[in-house]
């Protein structure tokens, strides 16, 4: 819960500064940028990812760099087109998850009392009920497609964000500037949206990154089970078809390796970004890091005892 440290200085944080100094952020943003680029312009170079282009299960070759699927589709084309759908759906769902979580968490923390009790109970219940089976059951009752998947993921995924933001609100609520705003008669919505939320910027950012990671993974999972639109090309449906067409038993590793690697790279990049935002906004982590770097430069092995170093 180090990220919820109340002493985080929102003013001292900028994305640009992060990019300049933090190697992890550079790598993370670099990978993400690459995938966003592929998602934006990649599909323009692909004619029809669902089209039959060559005999099924062709190994990777110059004609088809990533080989062909069990239905004779080009794996590279499918991966590229899938990137667009999965990345953007993931971002949208991630954003909605954070928004719902923020609405509930901030309301609970700000108003306190009975409102807090009721909302916290709801949040805790939702946290303890296993979300994947719940999502599967709800999705099974709705018409399959990206909208259903998104709705289900937002509905089952916001509780964790609400819990973190509630704690954050509790600590902000008693700050002088919030009390001052309240005394001067500002309406509740103004205090929440103008005074408090902007001060949660870094936490909201890490939450957005985390929620997007969750959204992409869970989305792929549900689609893999066939609860999405299996006719459309997404990362999840690529894996669904790879599994459905018995790719494993025919040795066609190229039908699932590219998509899985993309998912992992994006997830890895997002988690790099998250740690670096954490590091930049949490003074304790920042101090520890710079201290480590400093000691390393002096060739001192950090241990149990605080080393004495020349100034």
């Amino acid at each position, binding site marked *: 819960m180090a990220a919820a440290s109340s002493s985080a200085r929102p003013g001292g944080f900028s994305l640009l500064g992060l990019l300049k100094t933090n190697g992890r952020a550079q790598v993370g943003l670099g990978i993400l940028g690459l995938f966003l680029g592929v998602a934006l312009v990649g599909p323009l170079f692909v004619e029809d990812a669902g089209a039959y282009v060559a005999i099924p299960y062709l190994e990777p070759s110059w004609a088809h760099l990533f080989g062909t699927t069990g239905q004779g589709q080009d794996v590279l084309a499918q991966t590229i087109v899938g990137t667009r759908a999965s990345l953007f759906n993931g971002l949208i769902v991630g954003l909605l998850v954070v928004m719902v979580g923020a609405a509930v968490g901030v309301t609970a923390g700000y108003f306190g009392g009975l409102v807090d009790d009721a909302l916290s109970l709801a949040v805790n219940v939702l946290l303890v009920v296993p979300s994947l089976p719940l999502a599967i*059951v709800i999705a099974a009752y709705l018409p399959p497609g990206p909208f259903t998947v998104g709705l289900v993921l937002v509905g089952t995924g916001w509780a964790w964000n609400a819990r973190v933001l509630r704690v954050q609100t509790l600590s902000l609520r008693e700050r002088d500037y919030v009390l001052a705003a309240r005394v001067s008669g500002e309406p509740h919505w103004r205090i929440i949206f103008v005074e408090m939320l902007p001060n949660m910027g870094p936490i909201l950012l890490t939450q957005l990154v985390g929620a997007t990671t969750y959204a992409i993974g869970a989305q792929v999972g549900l689609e893999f089970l066939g609860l999405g639109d299996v006719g459309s090309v997404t990362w999840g449906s690529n894996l669904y078809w790879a599994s459905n067409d018995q790719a*494993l038993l025919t040795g066609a590793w190229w039908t699932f390796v590219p*998509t899985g690697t993309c998912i992992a790279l994006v997830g890895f990049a997002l988690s790099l970004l998250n740690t670096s935002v954490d590091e930049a906004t949490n003074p304790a982590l920042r101090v520890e890091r710079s201290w480590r770097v400093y000691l390393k430069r002096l060739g001192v092995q950090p241990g149990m005892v605080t080393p004495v170093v020349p100034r």
Partner: protein
Amino acid sequence: MKFLLKRLAFYGLAAFFAVTLNFLLPRLMPGDAAGAMFARFQGRLSPEALDALRRAIGIADGPLSLQYVHYLRDLLHGDFGISISQFPAPVLEVVWTGLGWTVLVAGSALIIGFVLGTALGIVAGWRRGGVLDSVLPPALAFIGAFPYFWLAMGLLFLFGFEWRWVPLRHAYSDGATPEWSFTFIADVARHAALPIFTVVVATLGGWMMGMRSAMVAVLGTEYLALGRAKGLSTVRLAWRYAGRNALLPNVTSLGMSLGFVLGGSLLTEVVFSYPGLGFLMVQAVRSQDFPVMQGLFIMITFAVLIANAVVDVLTTFIDPRTRSREA
């Protein structure tokens, strides 16, 4: 005791929520989806199966409140309805066949992953900047970024298809009869090894990093300095003094992540065609067997709630503070 009772009441409430949601879900379906679905099955199913379906999706007669009372009464009697795809097998019977396999795989994976990850975390936290601390975390973080089921596909491809070390699917060999003999248990172990390994590999990083940061927080404390001054051995200091005190956050997150680990292992089962709850769930989704789907959801939820309660009891044993707090 008061703390435990409060937690138990909370789990009761969560169970009630799940049960009620399970009741409302089919009845809240948009438009006349229930009727449409019903019409789709007409002619494909026997009248008895149709009747079971009618009861499950709630186009039974009577007001909602009465249906609810009947639903609760049936649940209390262990009556989850009747499976549609395996008519006329009761849902409970179908679900029961999967429960053992899932408990075997998810349970073993959870315990192995937790113990191994925590131990690695203690070592990594104790020797910060050491080999273990600088090599494993990024590697595990990268592996953890893959979806469980994709790792399962990759491992199955390598170990099952390419190298043929382990069987490709199912919980035991075709033709083997379930019995308490060495050969059968060995057969089951061979089939369960790769699914368990998959989940362990996917979750190891989380446990390790959680334990490592808890260790770091404990390392600066005075009782460790005292222990060192007393001349206690490093092993004793690291494991008994630092490790034990740093364990609590990880045990707490054990409860939190149960549902998550279970979710991942459900997807993993699908890849291995392993006949646990996850595989049953997917089959139920594909054959639109709603009674089974709902029975599985209730069963999985109850399993997670019970496991959470066990973790709570464990926590009070490990940390005396939770016991004294309410006094």
